[in-house]
């Protein structure tokens, strides 16, 4: 047990069975097990294959547009300092992953997974999506590689994310609205798993977050870690030091683990993950770590929103990308080890932060990173002026303008 509490490194998880401490694992039906094992083998081969790495990096540079900039948000910093005590008000920097092709960090992972799909000889792609960003990114890479693509999306999300639904269709993907359950991300994932189990022979499932059965949490993290590797290098080059605090929003947690992972063994760097507190932690929310307990869903053991019988409770957030009742298993482990701190922001706080960034920096963020910005606005005031915060601006807000207008009582 001491090993889990005080590991030599925070970067050598999971173990060979896909466990991050007590979390993670491979809780799937027998039909999927052989395929999961094949995927793990293929991924282990790809990881050490220079040709795979070269193709991944080439596409990230010339197709996605990496590296994404690291940007000092001077006016936001000044704005927050106005209400900070004397000598306080940390510098706020953003990793600009919203500038990626397709407008979010999701594409990093999709490039990696479609290269794996091609290596494995799979000829059909499926995905689940919440806000639609992962669906768009998957439809994009499927078009780029000429593979047919089916995206499962909760019927409620289809309603509130119409622009992304149309984008996916333009890209040639078939969008299937899932009406089961609450008709959001969780139900889309159930339906994608049902498709996969019936089509294991030719289908590759591109999971959008660092969750699901092993090896998905590890491979999604590895593909997204380009965010943290770049940020680390850029920050050292620009300021000569490492950031004092990293901040990222968490639904499943892929943008956060991508930013955090390369810094986990830098003891001076603190980290803060921000869950969606919805209407408030005492009401409907999607904060699995703050309001959930460990359980098993969608192939992994992790913190879940559930009732006293282990039935899954629906999450709520104004952000369709965050209202999932679980979280990636590595975050559950990082919480239990204490390496990363976790907090939450409500719908209202995220909306305020959304508008703050629009007005101070001329950047319209997605509602997901608006939760991170809300947390930044709180903690920056409590940190000294020479401290550096690096937050992940993981998506742009074009897709959210209708939701925001609605929340602000504006008719478009």
């Amino acid at each position, binding site marked *: 047990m001491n090993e889990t509490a005080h590991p030599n490194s925070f970067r050598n998880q999971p173990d060979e069975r896909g466990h991050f401490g007590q979390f993670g694992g491979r809780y799937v039906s027998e039909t*999927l097990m*052989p395929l999961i094992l094949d995927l793990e083998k293929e991924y282990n081969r790809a990881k050490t294959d220079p040709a795979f790495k070269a193709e991944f990096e080439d596409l990230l540079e010339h197709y996605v547009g990496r590296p994404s900039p690291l940007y000092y948000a001077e006016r936001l910093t000044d704005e927050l300092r106005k209400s900070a005590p004397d000598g306080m008000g940390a510098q706020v920097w953003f990793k600009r992953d919203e500038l990626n092709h397709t407008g979010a960090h999701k594409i990093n992972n999709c490039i990696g997974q479609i290269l794996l799909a091609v290596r494995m000889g799979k000829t059909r792609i499926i995905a689940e999506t919440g806000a639609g960003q992962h669906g768009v990114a998957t439809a994009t890479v499927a078009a780029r590689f000429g593979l047919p693509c089916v995206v499962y999306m909760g019927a409620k999300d289809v309603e509130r994310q119409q622009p992304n639904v149309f984008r996916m269709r333009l890209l040639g993907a078939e969008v299937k609205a899932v009406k089961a359950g609450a008709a959001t991300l969780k139900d889309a994932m159930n339906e994608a798993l049902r498709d996969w189990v*019936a089509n294991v022979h030719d289908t590759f499932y591109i999971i959008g977050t660092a969750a699901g059965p092993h090896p998905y949490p590890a491979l999604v993290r590895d593909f997204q870690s380009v965010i943290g590797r770049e940020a680390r290098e850029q920050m050292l080059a620009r300021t000569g030091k490492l950031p004092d605090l990293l901040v990222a929003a968490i639904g499943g947690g892929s943008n956060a683990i991508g930013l955090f992972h390369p810094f986990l063994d830098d003891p001076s760097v603190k980290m803060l993950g921000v869950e969606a507190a919805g209407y408030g932690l005492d009401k409907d929310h999607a904060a699995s770590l703050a309001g959930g307990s460990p*359980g098993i869903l969608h192939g992994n053991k992790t913190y879940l929103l559930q009732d006293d019988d*282990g039935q899954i409770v629906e999450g709520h957030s104004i952000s369709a990308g965050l209202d999932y009742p679980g979280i990636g298993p590595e975050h559950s482990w990082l919480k239990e080890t204490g390496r990363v701190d976790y907090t939450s922001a409500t719908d209202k706080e995220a909306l305020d932060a959304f508008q703050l960034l629009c007005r101070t920096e001329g950047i319209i963020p997605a509602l997901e990173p608006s939760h991170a910005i809300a947390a930044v606005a709180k903690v920056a005031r409590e940190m000294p002026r020479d401290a550096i915060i690096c937050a992940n601006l993981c998506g742009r807000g074009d897709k959210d303008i209708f939701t925001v207008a609605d929340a602000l009582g504006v008719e478009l």
Partner: protein
Amino acid sequence: MSRFDAAFGKPHPALVCFVTAGDGPTDAVLDALVEGGADVIELGMPFTDPMADGPGIQLANLRALGKGTKTADVFRIAADFRARHPEVPLVLMGYANPMIHRGADWFAEQCAKAGVDGVICVDTPPEEDAELGPFLRDAGVATIRLATPTTDAARLPQVLETATGFLYYVSVAGITGLQQAATASIDEAVSRLKAGTDLPVAVGFGVRTPEQAGAIAKVADGVVVGSALVELVGKHGDDAPAHVRELTTALAEAVHAARKENA
């Protein structure tokens, strides 16, 4: 002799029937299954996210949960069934989270107390057996494993290592209640499985009619029927037991007549 040994030791193949706990008048439906000739009962534990199930059983899960069915109700139904039918094997089938939520040791103890003979946990493969399996087996409850068309020869020994009670062959790669595999492929698969184990092999997924069940019973030790029965419960509600008895009787006649080699 265990109830499984007795059920699969009869001079004919076994009919295994699945219904969801808390959906419809479950106690009366279970009695109807036994009266119709079911040899083994599988009782589904409702779950909010039944990922391996097709539309029929998904809806049954939602109906059961919508009526407020709790884990305590499932064990109450099981214990009452055991009191009414001391000889008929009873299996709980469901997903990991409700089973481990209060601790696997608690769950195993409740199963033993309620007279449950075995458990099928759909999303706990042999790789994660430690989560639940040892607790059940220590409590004298069988851990019934699934084998599928994707379980190859290299993997089969690992599946069999922690399999007790009987082996459930899922005849199609897919979800419950939809397509059905060709009998020839089932014959071949069952032979392959039986070469590796002395456990009885029951075959299910997509079996809906007495004709299909009878054909599979020619090559297997048991035939599992679920969605067709669950859909009758959904359609007829409180009046379901008579309809369930009628279909079960026809299924049992076909399955029991298929082969009488042990006689």
